[in-house]
């Protein structure tokens, strides 16, 4: 138990996520707490939304910046925005200077990347199987073409080289 936990007065367990959310309002949230909040692991989404909105309004009131727009946010509005985004509108890739600065990768990045890569691997495997049945001449992808060249040089088995090409194709696509 580190100093943060042992110093503070006891918080009821059902309030732990609210305390994390309060810390997030101040930019003082721990990484693992933020992970848990964003993944919905510790609180119902609606309760989180309600508390988040209340804390923002409290902050605005204390700072004297109430401006007549203190209606609670609309769940329907947020849902509409997120729905449109989920329908395929991803953020533009960060420009080169931004890549220098930031990207703490999302904690689920590896999962996402390999899940996507798995789908691609299945497609490539299907194409390779189709080749083999047809006695296989090559309209190879660049990666597989390199594998083929390597096979010629090294005398490796077709299965081995297909696997190497599969890994290369998967890696190249995931990196893009």
């Amino acid at each position: 138990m580190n100093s943060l936990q042992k110093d503070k007065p006891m918080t009821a367990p059902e309030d732990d996520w609210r305390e994390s959310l309060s810390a997030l309002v101040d930019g003082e949230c721990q990484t693992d707490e933020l992970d848990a909040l964003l993944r919905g692991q510790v609180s119902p989404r609606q309760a989180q939304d309600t508390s988040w909105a209340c804390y923002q309004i409290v902050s605005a009131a204390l700072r004297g910046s109430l401006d007549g727009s203190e209606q609670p946010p609309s769940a329907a509005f947020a849902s509409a925005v997120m729905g449109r985004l989920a329908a395929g509108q991803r953020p533009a890739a960060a420009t080169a200077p931004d890549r220098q600065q930031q990207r703490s990768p999302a904690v689920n990045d590896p999962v996402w990347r390999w899940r996507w890569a798995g789908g691609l691997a299945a497609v490539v495997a299907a194409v390779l199987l189709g080749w083999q049945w047809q006695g296989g001449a090559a309209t190879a992808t660049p990666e597989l073409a390199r594998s083929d060249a390597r096979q010629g040089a090294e005398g490796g088995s077709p299965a081995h080289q297909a696997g190497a090409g599969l890994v290369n194709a998967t890696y190249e696509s995931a990196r893009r």
Partner: protein
Amino acid sequence: MNRHAPILSSADSDLLLVRRAQAGEMRAFELLVLKYQRRVERLVARMLRDPGLVEDVAQETFIRAYKALGQFRGESAFYTWLYRIALNTARRQIADLRRDPVQSMSSLETGDDDETSGNERELSLQITDAETPEALLASKEIAQAVNEAMDALPVELRQAITLREIEGLSYDEIANVLDCPVGTVRSRIFRAREAISGRIRPLLERQGGKRW
């Protein structure tokens, strides 16, 4: 929960969420939408006269912001950046309406028709929904409820949240001022927020429905 994980810096909460959203965590962006929805709507409403367009333009603002999120470098505050996107989105809407021969005159902003007019001139002070007597009264009621709640807080909670919200100190700085551990500061600020929130929730329920 692993309390040995590194504590994030006391940087802007928005920047934390933006970085997570840039990394693909949609929920982080959703929290920003929830936080700024009403402010964006208010800004847009000041430029457009047709309240029916405000929500669409506000939604479009957030969509555009998400698409451009990779370009946000944190050199300005997130809301400043979002504000510019909202302005541009509203301007595009106005330009589209002007090009449409079957436009609704009531959808256009008031003011002159000079296309080269500057930003400030477009922000004409029109009475909008957010500035109706009802909205202003609601703000006043909230402010009053917050003040009453602050007066009712135990002194240590009131001190902590005052140093945070009004003086803008970080948790570490508040801990130094109050000579107590950071964990205590964090807990006090949270409990103060919860107490005040409890007072304003009935008011918000009246405005926004029972979910609050």
